[in-house]
């Protein structure tokens, strides 16, 4: 079994329901994100449109984070998920530096690396990842890439000419696919990034407010 994700960007409407579901399910601290939806505006008024791209760990078959981790805190599960053992992590941030998708962060509460695990704990209980459940338009398709009859395999077969991964030139073989993606949604260098259009930019690594 090799679990994978596919996001149909034609369907995604940027509601950020997946983002919130992930935050709640995994208790992701303020200023950090396992999954986020990036908005990119394209065109010049009045010919404009907005693209929405959910971004999470790609669970690469050839994962640079797994390779660089000095203590095997990042490791493969049998189902292909790249999981993390936070108790073992020493916080060297090698994985953060190695991941070409910016999917790993240092958790400000535990001071260890963290990232999307495809909700491995839910998978172990035969449940779908929280973001899949929360998506109102079923833009997130999750399943076994080794099973040709799975939803994700069928989706890939139906959209063969339009299935992409991010940064294929890195040779990481992501288990995360996009349908309907373009250069501006999948290539971070294809869009400008002006100041002032990001969330919680001034929160750095402080603990969340509360408790006193």
């Amino acid at each position, binding site marked *: 079994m090799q679990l994978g994700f596919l996001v149909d960007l034609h369907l995604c409407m940027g509601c950020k329901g997946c983002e919130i579901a992930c935050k709640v399910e995994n208790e992701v601290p303020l*200023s950090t*994100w396992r999954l*986020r939806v*990036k*908005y*990119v*505006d*394209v*065109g*010049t008024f009045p010919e404009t449109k*907005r693209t929405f791209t959910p*971004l999470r760990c790609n669970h690469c078959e050839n994962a*640079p984070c797994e*390779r*660089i*981790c*000095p*203590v*095997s805190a990042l490791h493969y599960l049998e189902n292909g998920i790249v999981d993390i053992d936070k108790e*073992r*992590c*020493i*916080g*060297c*941030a*090698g994985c*953060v*530096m*190695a*991941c*070409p*998708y*910016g*999917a790993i*962060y*240092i958790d400000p509460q535990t*001071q*260890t690396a963290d990232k999307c695990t495809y909700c491995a704990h839910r998978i172990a209980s035969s449940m779908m990842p929280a973001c899949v459940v929360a998506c109102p338009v079923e833009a997130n398709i999750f399943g076994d890439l080794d099973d040709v009859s799975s939803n994700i395999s069928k989706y890939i077969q139906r959209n063969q000419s339009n299935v992409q991964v*991010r940064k294929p030139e*890195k040779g*990481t073989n992501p288990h995360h696919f996009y349908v309907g993606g373009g*250069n*501006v949604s999948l290539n*971070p*260098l*294809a*869009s*400008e*990034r*002006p100041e002032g*259009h*990001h*969330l*919680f*930019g001034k929160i750095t690594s402080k603990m969340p407010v509360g408790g006193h």
Partner: protein
Amino acid sequence: MAAHEILAATNAVVSLDVATVTTTWPWLVTVNMWAKSIGTGVIFMLFLLLRTHPESGNKLRFVTAAAAFVFINIFLLFTLADLHQPFRMWHIFFHPHWSSAITIGSFMASAFLGLLTLLVFLAYTKKDETFDKVLLWVTILAIPVTLYTAALMAQCTARELWQMPAESAQMILAALLAGSAAMILLGGDKLTYEAKKSLGVVLGLSALMAFIIYMSEYVFGPMKAEEIAATIEYIKGDGPYTVMFWLGQWMTYLLPMLLIVLSRASKSENILKLAALLALVGLFIVKHVWLMIPQLLPMS
């Protein structure tokens, strides 16, 4: 904002996203690389002096071993300080993952420190013959110890700028440059004029070669990959690291080369010392710029 090409036809602008994290590996890692260059470099230079200028090398066993010991400890201390969970450092030795350059480097650096401690003891007790035998193995081990950071940078798949062949050459050259510069300053009157001239040649040539590699990457790197082009923009024009980059290049490479030529022409040892001092300070700046600029690039 890097000046990579945004097509006018698409006019794509990120209108909502999370903030880009820009300092995953901060200046502590710069200290790590800088101190390691000095710690391994002085060992290379002592090995060289004992064979080419034994009259000078013989007087420098203790001071060199002690300097290497101090700087390797600085390197290890700052490596530890950079960890978010420093008290779990022992996990590396009890749960080692051998595909990681960090793991291999940790074992090698620990062995290197152990041998350096032995060298200090042997130098202090004046057991020169044994010292020289151990020094051979320490010198051999110093090569992978100084190189492993290049392997680590190469394992950072996300940072296209750090390519293994170039980084490994830069690490060895940094060790030769820092080692010769530190030895010129440490040696003082114990070094003969000829020994100083030899160290000056090592300093000048390593500066020249490192400068050539940096300039090659600066000019030709952007022709190979979009990410390198975007990264190099941070040290071009009004980029945030342009001034620091050129300050580093002048202080570490260009000025020391000029000063070494001047010192040979005028037989001035003070000018050579100035070149050594500039190179040591400048190396920190050069390393810091090269560490920081790939971290400025948005990854997703």
